[in-house]
């Protein structure tokens, strides 16, 4: 996923568990990171940016500004991967033009009384907008929406947890591209196969997000 706010762009590659053997000849029971792959991202202007292996196996990093590329300007970026086994993976994402980041300072949010209401202007190139609510106490809550979100303070997640636990909570709104939206908007369905993904040669997603608003709440 290309992040218009990130200095380092990260690409994660792994092999699915299919009951086969891993590179050491042992039967794989989980996703196996793919190490030693050649990963390149090509900017809209044709600048080729090879990635380097990160500390985490299977993760690759690119610092676009080292190549004079600003992801925040948007445009169509291409991904090219060649694995050590010779497999080729390609994909393209149209990065939404990153708007200016808007940060709402920490404020008190009374869970039983307040409702979170946010609205923002449409972003060119955005297919949808993702709301991420994150706190230390609860698994994060995510939802796609159009240019508004209304969340009552008493809202619950699908697992029955509080969306707004009594703790500091950060809410982030990001514009996302079509690949990201198509891949993440529904959870995996065992009867439906894999969702549209914008990749050839692999499953997964090559998408992009443009964070645009952070709201910090002290939930009481």
């Amino acid at each position, binding site marked *: 996923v290309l992040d218009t706010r990130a200095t380092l762009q*990260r690409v994660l590659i792994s092999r*699915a568990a299919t009951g086969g053997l891993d590179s050491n000849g042992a039967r794989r029971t989980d996703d196996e990171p793919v190490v030693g792959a050649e990963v390149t991202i090509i900017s809209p202007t044709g600048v080729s940016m090879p990635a380097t292996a990160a500390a985490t196996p299977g993760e690759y990093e690119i610092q676009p500004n080292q190549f004079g590329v600003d992801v925040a300007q948007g445009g169509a970026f291409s991904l090219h991967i060649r694995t050590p086994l010779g497999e080729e993976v390609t994909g393209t994402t149209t990065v939404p033009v990153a708007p200016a980041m808007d940060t709402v300072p920490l404020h008190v949010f009374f869970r039983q009384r307040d409702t979170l209401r946010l609205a923002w202007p449409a972003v060119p190139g955005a297919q949808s907008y993702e709301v991420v609510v994150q706190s230390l106490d609860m698994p*994060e809550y995510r939802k796609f929406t159009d240019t508004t979100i209304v969340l009552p303070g008493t809202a619950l997640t699908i697992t029955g*947890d509080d969306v707004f636990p009594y703790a500091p909570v950060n809410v982030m709104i990001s514009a996302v591209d079509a690949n990201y939206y198509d891949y993440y*908007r529904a*959870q995996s369905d065992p009867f439906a*196969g894999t969702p549209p993904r914008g990749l050839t040669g692999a499953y997964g997603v090559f998408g992009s*997000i443009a964070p645009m608003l952070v709201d910090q709440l002290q939930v009481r």
Partner: protein
Amino acid sequence: MSRRHVSPVRFELSQHLTTGLVAGVVLLLALAARPAAGQQPTNRDSAEKRDSLSRRRPVMLPTVRTEAPRTERRLFTSKPNVSNLSVSARDLQRAPRFFAEADVLRSLQLMPGVEARNDFTAGMNVRGGEADQNLILLDGYPVYNPFHFGGLFGTFIDPAVGRVDMLTGGFPAPYGGRLSSVLNVRSAEEDRPGLHGTSELSLIASTLSLGGALGSGGSWLIAGRRTYADQAINLVKRNAFPYHFFDLEGHVAYTLPASFRFSATGYGGDDLLHFDASTEGERQHILWGNRVAGATLSRPFTGLPALLGDSAVFEQRVSQSLFELSTQISGGGLDLRSNVRDVRAGGSITVYAPTHTHSIGYELARQRLGYSVSYPVPLFPVDSLEQRVASVSAYVDELWRPRSSLMIESGVRYDRVRGVQSTLLPRLSVKYFMNENFALTAAVGDYAQWIRSLAREDIPLRPVDYWIGADSLTPMSRARHYVFGIERWVTPSRQLRIEGFYKRYSQLLEPNAFDDPQKLGDEFVPVKGWSTGADLLLRQFDTGRFGGWISYTYTLNSRIDASGYRFFPSQDRRHDVNVVGSWKFPRYTVAARFNLASGTPYTRMTGQFGRVRYDPFNQAYTTETNLPEVQFLTGPRNGERLPLSQRLDVSVTRNFSPGRLTITPYLSIMNVYNAHNVFGYVYNYTALPPTRISLPQLPIFPTIGLSMSW
């Protein structure tokens, strides 16, 4: 002094002549010399005649057999009746109970051409059609989700059902709005004076029905059923099984002055699961139910001008049918709703002439349909829709008997859905009698459907259908049926029917598995294809000791999706055999049903990986989301088949008749030898070695109960 003789005279009378139910046999002994009706002397006023009669030797009169024609036989001789399965309540009750309850809809799945993919589905697949292509009616009024407990039980209360007519293809112009079949459940009409009823107690539910005659030719009936497992388990542990369902049904028919006949039917039933908890997020609430109310007014006319015919029947009906599903999981973290409000009015005039029966009719319908879900979850539709659909339908239907050996029923139906499209649908069916017991039949017709379900056929679990309508972005679905067959009455009580069919879907829509809730009009994707096959029914009507049937269905189905990929749809069951029989002994009745069916297609999982998310706060990948996310990799769509399934159900009933009461205790065992029929597979590629666990359908389930009638 004249001698009195006891003259044994034997009669065989119909038990239900007026209703046309299966004829019974009654042995009467005439206790006096008075002859039977119809055998009386013509001149009874003559004293000399009486004297001369009394002086004669007693005469043993021959057996007189008076038997009402079976409804099935009457349909055989009076209509082309292609693909029509007409089943009486008695026939349906003959099958062993399903999960402790006698169930009309489950019993119908034992008939040819009618399939259910497994024990947990509310859908029926008729001759290869998708499960939402069946029009289900109660006394002619639509019912949208006639199932309880996620499809395990039908909503129709068994003692309240009089007859079921199922049209599995080639149905005539009066029926429309669905592509595959019409199921009309007719309420029982109790024509005996006084108060009569049935009470049933099973391990799962109790049922009570009461009814009787009402005036001249009228009847009333009320029936109710409620499960009580929740109450029973509550005695042991409170709130341990907070689920129940109930049904309440009433039907009245009454003859008004001037030969008008009025009938009305009402039905209400709910499933309710309410799990209370101290923590808000642990509370669960699921409610779904149907409400149906309808009334029909009809009047026969005679003395028509000769040009028109000799008699006519006018009929007018109105109805309202509601369905509502309200689901709040995790205290409302997931809120899922579906609702239908259907209001319709229709009518017909049928004119009878010696060789013609002309019908003309109309139907106006309005539906409000809605579906919403607050959060996308797997297996459920993700879109939220609110629709209003208005349709106008009209038809003409002509049944012509040019010769005694030939019947032709032709008609055309016009359906117009506001803002969608209008269509003309011709229908034709023909019956040619080779002799009085053997006929060749054929039918062809066009069919359209504009109300459809968002439930996907590939998902084997189908608790309810989420109905929405066609609109300017999702057109009507279209199909054409071709049916040909033979029908032979081997004996007056044994029927053989074999039919071949071909159904072509030129314009079909299936729910889009990747529906985008932000986009309108992508809820369905186009599919085309065909279903073909043949079905056989050999049926022995109950005339004494044995009754039952053998049904066999062969289907071959093919669909092509929007990308041009050809696949077998999930309902593509090639072979399905049902053997149903009941044997009456002096004190016991033993019933059995055996099913053998080939497997249906499914999509195999070939692998899996974890779906990581990008965390924009920390600019790193994370798996800390509110649901674990596993991405399954799949093989070709429906590229594999489940194994063969088989099941034997048996029941034994004992009959006592103290006075006017009939008491029938029963023992019923479902899946007698506990066959492990596969419902589906769960894969785990993170296990060492990877595992595939087969989920079973219903296991052996013995049950006892008691039925009383008076």
